[in-house]
């Protein structure tokens, strides 16, 4: 029984990890917590639904198309909404991002109503071994989360654009002075993170159901993971995702499962009390 909870925790962590990495990267470069991630993820899930069920594409192709489309939507949201407001304080941008997530969610509501949906995939019997159940979809989620973690690591470590992203996150003015095209870096960051949010939408739609509140329900665990790991640190976000994902599932032992969202919040509260800059984050030096 407890091994089953452990496996559920891993799946949960794998679902939270990619968006937590994306949220953290985005925060690093843009310097405000983007609450619109809920809307982005929901958009990704419904985009994949449109390609898969309405256009009849296979799921893999739909997922790739949805990632591309979500990346584009997220990039566009920067161009239309956030770019003209550069230089505004984090709180203003935060309010704007909440407004944006509401707009995205309700556009989806207008098109698809609040009905619960699922992808067009054959039902497969979950694999059982040693009394543990795991579905094929869940195995895919774990594999893809690992792939995202490795890909992000390689991107940040070994490619020019990745290094430029880290430089811009560290000190945008210095990066600009050193000849980095920060505008291009910012655009790429939105696109890359958008693709990850799209992927999350697909994965969440596989594991849960597709509905307009899909992204919102993931928002607090994602924040918890990113803050826990130290906001702005993508490696911290991976670690944070594992801890939040496991904590949410393991607390089922002591709390009713309906309090899962509350667990994320309690983790944030307790952690920020002890280490305001997260586990792997650097304390911010003020002024």
């Amino acid at each position, binding site marked *: 029984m407890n091994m089953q909870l452990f496996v559920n925790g891993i799946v949960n962590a794998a679902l939270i990890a990619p968006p937590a990495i994306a949220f953290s990267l985005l925060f690093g470069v843009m310097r*405000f*917590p983007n609450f619109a991630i809920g809307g982005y993820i929901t958009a990704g899930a419904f985009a994949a639904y449109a390609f898969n069920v309405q256009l009849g594409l296979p799921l893999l192709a739909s997922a790739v198309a949805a990632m591309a489309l979500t990346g584009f939507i997220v990039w566009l949201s920067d161009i239309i*909404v956030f770019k*003209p*407001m550069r230089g*505004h304080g*984090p*709180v*203003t941008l*935060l*309010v*704007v991002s*909440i*407004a*944006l997530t*509401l*707009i995205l969610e*309700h*556009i989806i*509501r*207008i098109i698809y*109503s*609040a009905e619960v949906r699922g992808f067009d995939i054959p039902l497969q019997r979950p694999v059982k071994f040693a009394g543990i159940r795991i579905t094929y979809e869940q195995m895919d989620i774990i594999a893809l989360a690992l792939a995202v973690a490795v890909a992000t690591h390689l991107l940040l470590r070994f490619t020019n654009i990745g290094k430029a992203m880290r430089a811009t996150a560290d000190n945008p003015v210095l990066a600009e002075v050193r000849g980095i095209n920060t505008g291009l870096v910012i655009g790429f960051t939105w696109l890359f993170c958008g693709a990850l949010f799209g992927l999350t939408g697909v994965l969440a739609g596989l594991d849960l159901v597709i509905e307009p509140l899909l992204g919102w329900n993931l928002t*607090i665990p994602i*924040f918890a993971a990113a*803050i826990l790991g130290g906001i702005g640190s993508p490696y911290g976000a991976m670690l944070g995702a594992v801890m939040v994902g496991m904590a949410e599932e393991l607390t089922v032992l002591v709390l*009713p499962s*309906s*309090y899962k*969202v*509350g667990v*994320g*919040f*309690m983790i*944030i*509260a307790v952690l*920020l*009390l002890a280490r*305001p800059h997260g586990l792997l984050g650097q304390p*911010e030096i*003020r*002024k």
Partner: protein
Amino acid sequence: MSAYLISMATYVGFFMILAIALNLQWGMTGMVNFGIAGFYALGAYSSGLLTVKAGWPVGFAMPAAAVVGIAAGALVALLSIRLREDFLAIVTLGFGELIRLIALNEDEITEGPRGLKIDARPFADMFDRTTYPIVYLAMVLAVVALAFFIAERIRRSPMGRSLRAIREDDVVAEVLGKNVLRHRVQVFAIGAGFMGAAGALYAHYVQNISPEVFMPMVAIFIWMSVIVGGAGNNWGLLLGAGIVMAILEGSRFMGDFIDFLDAEKLSAIRVILIGVLLIIILRVRPRGLMPEPRFRYGRSPGGGSSTADAQS
């Protein structure tokens, strides 16, 4: 129709109390609160449960709701006082969701999604059914006036100046010897108390409360009210709350003209409209329709009746 207008005015009153509270916390002191729905729900359920389950008279239960709000506000503020303002947003949002989850899941106490039926209403036996809504509106407006008076007194007091200093730069305020921690906790608690009182007024007005009313969306409507009016200005937010309600209610009538929209789509359009307007206002008039007057320096101390003071 007049019954409809009275009920709308009552709702605007709830919005105004919440907006005054948020203006204290954010507009004056710079403390972000996205858990407005949580404090509102806490007040509503406190007063509701105290009357329904504990048998308290309404006259005690409603002030008790404000006290619960104050206590919860002080707790959240103490918990998150070391946080940057954007992290405070996340913690308060989480707090609001936690309160909603408790209301939803502890259904043996709160009746959960079925909703808590509240029979008790203040002064209900003194008036007949037709005049009672007007009496209730008057009561709500009295609380609005009280909250407004307290907020204005704080704003004009030396404490108000300290609060603005904290908002602009808490390090400087600390260096100047202001007790930043105490001021922040006080203001957050007072604001949360107002929110609790608004929740109690709401609960005994609708007489049936359920968790789905207290979605995080409430916070956006109140933020919109404060931002439209002009953060830091108590008069502005009264206007802002009226405008937000006018948009919310006015778009209800759009359905009469555009027949392919059902109720669900219409309510979605309403939210989109609010969201788009909020973004536009933040872009073109970030200081709101009635901006906070620039603070003037170099006035002689004690010159309380100068024109600058009368306006500020």
